[in-house]
Every structure is written in structure tokens, then in C-alpha cells.
């Protein structure tokens, strides 16, 4: 017996947010009014909700589906000082074919590298459908002049990057210079041209969930295609409560602005179990519409093999061993 009484009533526009066009003046004061007018986030409540969703039990075909989704959402990443063309080439080969013994494994969504290795990556993933994402804007610290940051972006874009992962100026944000942060994101958005822009908030440095919510809205208003938790160079990186706040923000932003922004969690996600927990958060906070690589990504390196191992266990019934999966 099915009980469905009426669909959700659409009512008056969201009272806490505003139309993007309202933000004509992008001064610190104007943005402050808007961002500090957002509803607060109760840290304990948000943490509890995330913890509650972590008890969802995802088994059997639901788990297999989740693992395949997660693999298809991975941005396979190498961002080390010691990166070489050889290292990047090997990683891209893995991106195309995560498991040589199983062709049914989907390819990952993207590879993520420093701007000077974009060219290598482009060639290595050519004709595979895998996007090349480049970090930029003086990643990871973001401490450089706007001119330097834009030059960084332009190099990445001209080398062929399909996606740009920029960092916001956390110093400016914490000092209340919201106008500067906004302007920088807009400028980078321009410089990206057709490339998609992910804006890294570096949530660990923002420290409070209120700041995460405000930075999320600031980035979205400035034109971000994705908001991203972390550079992966600072701990803690992505955490469930942080992701929850960002997923709620993109959901609410769509309600007001009619535009869907994606979320990327990155840093410290090593186990398939954690990846699946993030998918549950996406599913139940933002909604099933976000369960696609167009709108959700996981930045990772070692996670991929754990996803493959869990996938193998689901299919064969036996726990897998690391030697059966390639390092890169």
C-alpha cells in the first residue's frame, strides 16, 4: 500500500539566500552582509548527522554499484615536487585501465597534475574520455600576486587542461577581505575559458563550519563549477561534516540560483569504505542528482586500489591482496 499524499509544495524563495544578481557591489561589506546572513551551522549537529549517515549499511549490489560509481568519480592525482613525466605517464596508464585483469572496471573521471605536466598527461590520456585537471594559482598555499596566479592558470589552460583546481586566498578570507577573494575567483574563471573551474576552499584552514559554508557560497557566487574541500597538503583534509556543509550549500544554491555546482572531496580518503560514506552523504544531503562524475569527484591516489580490492571481493567473495593490483 503506497501512501503519497502530495508533492513537496514549492513556496516563496529561500529567505536566507539571494539572487546572484543582487551582489552587484562586491565590496567586503556587501559580501559580509550576505555571507554572514547565511544561517549558522551547528558544529555538533552537523557532526552527528554525518556520523548517523555513516551507519548506512551498503551491501551486495548496492555496494558494487557504489564502488563502480566511486571509481568513475576519482580524480587520480599526483602533486609532488618529485613528479616526472615518467610518473605522470604511469599514473595516466592506470587511469585508463585501473585493473589490467578486469576490463569491466570503469575508467576514472580525471587525472590531476601540476601545470607543467599537463602536456604529458594530455597525451597520455588522449582519446580516453578522461579529463586532465590542473592545479593552479600558486597551489597549494595560494600566496602569490594575482598576476602570478593568473599566469599559472593560463599556462595550464594553454597546455590543454580541461579542468582547473584553484585555491582561494585563505589569508584574505580570514582577514575578511571577501571582495578580494571574490574578485580573484572571477578573474580565474575568466582565464579558464572553456575549462571547468574547481575552487579549493582548504577547509582545514578555514577552521569552522560557518566559514566553510560562507566560503562555499562565495565561490559559487563568483562562478565556481565545483567547490573542493582541500589541497591534500594540510591535515585534516576532507571530513564528513565539512562535506555535509558543502553538499547542503550546493543543494541550496541550486534552489536560489538555478545552477548546479559540483563538490569534490580530496585528501586523506584512502579506504573504499570512506568513499562509500561520502557517496551516502551526496545521496542524502545534496540528492541523487549529484551522484554523477559531472557533479561529484573524489581526489585520491591510493584510494583507487582499495576500491579495486573491494570490488574484487564483492565479485569473487574472497578478500584481495595488494600484490594483485598495480601500483600505478
Amino acid at each position: 500500500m503506497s501512501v503519497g499524499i502530495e508533492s513537496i509544495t514549492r513556496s516563496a524563495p529561500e529567505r536566507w539566500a539571494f539572487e546572484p544578481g543582487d551582489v552587484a557591489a562586491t565590496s567586503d561589506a556587501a559580501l559580509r552582509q550576505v555571507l554572514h546572513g547565511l544561517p549558522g551551522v551547528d558544529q555538533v549537529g552537523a557532526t552527528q548527522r554525518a556520523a548517523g549517515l555513516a551507519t548506512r549499511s551498503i551491501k551486495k549490489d548496492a555496494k558494487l554499484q557504489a564502488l563502480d560509481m566511486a571509481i568513475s568519480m576519482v580524480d587520480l592525482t599526483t602533486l609532488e615536487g618529485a613528479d616526472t613525466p615518467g610518473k605522470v605517464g604511469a599514473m595516466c596508464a592506470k587511469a585508463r585501465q585501473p585493473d589490467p585483469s578486469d576490463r569491466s572496471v570503469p575508467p576514472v573521471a580525471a587525472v590531476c597534475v601540476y601545470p607543467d605536466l599537463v602536456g604529458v598527461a594530455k597525451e597520455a590520456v588522449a582519446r580516453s574520455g578522461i579529463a586532465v585537471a590542473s592545479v593552479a594559482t600558486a597551489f597549494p598555499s595560494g600566496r602569490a600576486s594575482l598576476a602570478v596566479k593568473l599566469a599559472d592558470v593560463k599556462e595550464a589552460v594553454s597546455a590543454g587542461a580541461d579542468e582547473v583546481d584553484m585555491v582561494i586566498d585563505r589569508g584574505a578570507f580570514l582577514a575578511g577581505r571577501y571582495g578580494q577573494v571574490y574578485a580573484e575567483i572571477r578573474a580565474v574563471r575568466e582565464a579558464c575559458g572553456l575549462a571547468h573551474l574547481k575552487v579549493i576552499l582548504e577547509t582545514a584552514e578555514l577552521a569552522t563550519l560557518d566559514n566553510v559554508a560562507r566560503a562555499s557560497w562565495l565561490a559559487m557566487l563568483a562562478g565556481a563549477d565545483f567547490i573542493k574541500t582541500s589541497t591534500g597538503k594540510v591535515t585534516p583534509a576532507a571530513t564528513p561534516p565539512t562535506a555535509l556543509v558543502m553538499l547542503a550549500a550546493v543543494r541550496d544554491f541550486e534552489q536560489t540560483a538555478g545552477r548546479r555546482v559540483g563538490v569534490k572531496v580530496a585528501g586523506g580518503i584512502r579506504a573504499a569504505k570512506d568513499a562509500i560514506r561520502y557517496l551516502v552523504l551526496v545521496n542524502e544531503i545534496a540528492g541523487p542528482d549529484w551522484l554523477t562524475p559531472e557533479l561529484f569527484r573524489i581526489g585520491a591516489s591510493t584510494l583507487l586500489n582499495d576500491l579495486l580490492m573491494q570490488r574484487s571481493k564483492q565479485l569473487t567473495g574472497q578478500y584481495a591482496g595488494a600484490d594483485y593490483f598495480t601500483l600505478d
Partner: protein
Amino acid sequence: MPRQDRSVAAGERPAEPGEPVWRYAPAPESRDVVSIEPEYGLFVAGEFRPAASGGSFATINPATEEPLARVAAAGRADVDAAVAAARSAYEQVWGTMAGSERAKYLYRIARQLQERAREFAVLESLDNGKPIKESRDVDIPLAAAHFFYYAGWADKLEHAGFGPDPRPLGVAGQVIPWNFPLLMAAWKLAPALAAGNTCVLKPAETTPLTALLLAQVCQEAGLPPGVLNVLTGAGDTGAELVSHPGVNKVAFTGSTEVGKEIARAVAGTDKKLTLELGGKAANIVFDDAPVEQAVEGIVNGIFFNQGHVCCAGSRLLVQESVAEVVVERLQRRLTTLRLGDPLDKNTDIGAINSRQQLEKIGELTKAGEAEGARRWSPPCQLPERGYWFPPTVFTGVAQSHRIAREEIFGPVLSVLTFRTPDEAVAKANNTPYGLSAGIWTDKGSRILWLAQKLRAGVIWANTYNRFDPASPFGGYQESGYGREGGRHGLAAYLNV
């Protein structure tokens, strides 16, 4: 490497529009962890025995209507025997035992509740209908924690603020409800035993099984015979117990109606009485509330345990300026609630405990519609067998509606509005009940101002339905008297 046929995945078809992209597979907790006997006796003087009359009745699984076991129906002779056993244990063993020794029994029981946690949780969900997620994560851990907490008071009573040598009362007759069967047993037994009393416990008619398992645990812990006695039965067993002349202390949790009967029954005797009765709590949401968490708090407040909670936030008092937005977000959130098999780990909403309760909820919701309130539920599939009620929200509710005044004890929320803090207080207090209240605002001073003004024994600010053995719980006015939990919870069981 060998591979199974991916027939499951192969059978997947792309989702139709409106269908979930990702369906969670059934994730049932195994029933195997608990073995339910076909028949249980009463637990009197340390052993299980049939009722003197030989009578028994069935307890069923409300999610499937399947019978789980038969339990004994205690009559007057059984009550006599249990009270006598409790009296003798009190006088000869428990009432004279050093507190530090009593403590160690309670610690043993607490440890067993932790050891056998899964077993207790599954049994609770089978007998009560609540989701395994709740019995596993809330009921059983809190029950163990209650025993731990009060074990620690058993040998420290002189430090509890009741004088240098507070004494127990004697034999306690304790009648508990069906909504949190094991937890309510822990709330009653732990402080009573810690203080040196002996107990006769009457679990609810529809949920006797975890109390009986607890009795087994106490037996294994070596609890001296007669210290704990468990009499299963219906309302008449409870009535016999509370009016028995051999009982020094009566503790009752249940409906206000029955609470009043009990208060009348002990009038003129020297029996000490504590009551924990019904409520119609106001969950107050201000325009500056942390909205996302407030919506969670509303959901938790009325849909946790299917709304079978005396302190449920059954009246949402939302500031008028944000009412539409809050309700819309609430409705959206409710569409992600999962109703179904209580043993499925992903179930959020379980079964209604009995046909009787289901009918009562139905009657009041019909009244709500008749009174002109607007009714809404998210689409959900109710199973064919068992007792089920979808989460329901009434908007356009006025103080004068029955659904704003009477305790429904089900997953039904009544939404009213207010304009100012004073009006919120007035509306929240405009009830003969006074058990609990919720306050959602980002402003600390407002929380404390409201906390001072609200006539409720438990006030949750920016949270809801949080319980802890260290935190006293109990109501004002017709929600009862006495407190359970914390240092204050000892008072009910001491001669102070």
C-alpha cells in the same frame, strides 16, 4: 582469479525518471544472534517459574504480527511471592550489604549488557518494532551506561548531597512502558539497586523479552535471589503490584491517565511515588536557527522511535517569518526517511508497537484533518503485514486543535507559528504537560532566557532527544514528578 557471474549487476537497468539512482540493498541484521525460547516464566527469588495460575500470553513482532514467545501472566499470588522474595532479600542480604559490594554486582550487569549488546538490540527490535539502528546505537548503550553510572553511586551515597547516611526505602515496585523496554528497565533498576532497594519490575505487556533476558543476565552475574524479580503481565498485574502493601516505593513511567490512577491508589499509604508521564513538547525554531541542523532536530524530535517518546517534540513552534521555508526544507528532508523492516540496518522508521496504538494514532490524525489542519506525508511504501504509520506533518495547526493538545505518541508532527519570543514561551507553556522543550537559535542569551521561562523539566537547545545517565530527566505538572538520572535521580530511592 575466479569470478562470479555478475548477474546481479548485469540485471541492472538504468533508473526510470523519479526512481532512485542508487538503491540501498537490504542489509538485515541477523536474528541468529539471539535465541528466543518458546516460553518464559516469571523471574522470582532468583529463578524462572510459571505463573501460579499457569496463565500465559503471547508477545508478537509488530513488524510482521508473528508471535515471538509466550510469557507468563502474573496474578496476585505471584505478586505476593515476588514482593515477599524482595522483602526477604532486602532485609537479609541487599539492604545490609556494603555499597561497594552492591556496586560490583551492578558493574557486572553493565558489562554483560555491553558484551551481549547485539543480542539485546536484535531482541529489542523484534519485540518492540523499533529500527535496529536505534536499539543498537541508543537503547542498549544507554542502558549499559545507566548501570555503570549508578554502580558508581552505590558506595558514595554520603557524597550525594542527601546527608551523611541516606538509607534505601525497601522494596520498590516498578512499572515500565513499551517504548524503550530495556532502557526503562535500566532507568528504574540501576538507581534503585544502587541505593540498596530490592525490586519487583513489571515490564509492559507488549515488550517483555529484553527484561527477561536482563533477568537471565542478573542470574549469571550472581545477583542474590530476590534482589530483582520480574513479573510479566498486563495492566492488572501492574495494578496489583503498585497497591501491594509490601511495597515501599512505587515508580511508574507511562501515560498520564494511568499515572493519576496510581497516585490515587497510593493515597493514604506511606508509599513513596515517582511518575514519569506524557508530554506535548514544543520544539521552538527561531528565525536565526542553524536551519539545516534545526530540521534534523525536528525530525529527530518527532520521528525518532516512531514518535513513541514521552518527550517527543510533537509541536513544532516555528517563527512565522521563516515558517514556509522551514516546513519546505522539512518536507524535503522527510522524503529521505526509510520506513520498513526494523531489522534492516538502513531503516529509519520502524513499526508501531501495537494495533491499539496504531488505532489511537489513526483516530487523532483523523481528528486533525476534521479540525481543518493540512495533512502531509512523504511517499512511502507500507509493508502488507504489521502495524505501520507514515511520518506525518500537519500544518495550519492552532492551539485549540486536539492534535496540538493531546499526546498522539506516534510519528505525527503538528506545526504552529509564533511571532515573538514571549509568544513562543506562552504557547509552549500553554499545556498541562511540562516534560520537555527544544530551542533552536544561534543566540546564546535567548537560549538561556527561554530556558528560564519554559515550564519543562528537560530543555534541549540546538539539539533534541539527547539522554545520558548523568543528566536528570523528568517533568513538571502532569508530566509527572521525580527525576531519573544524575545525582538527583538517587532521591527517588532514598529515604530523604
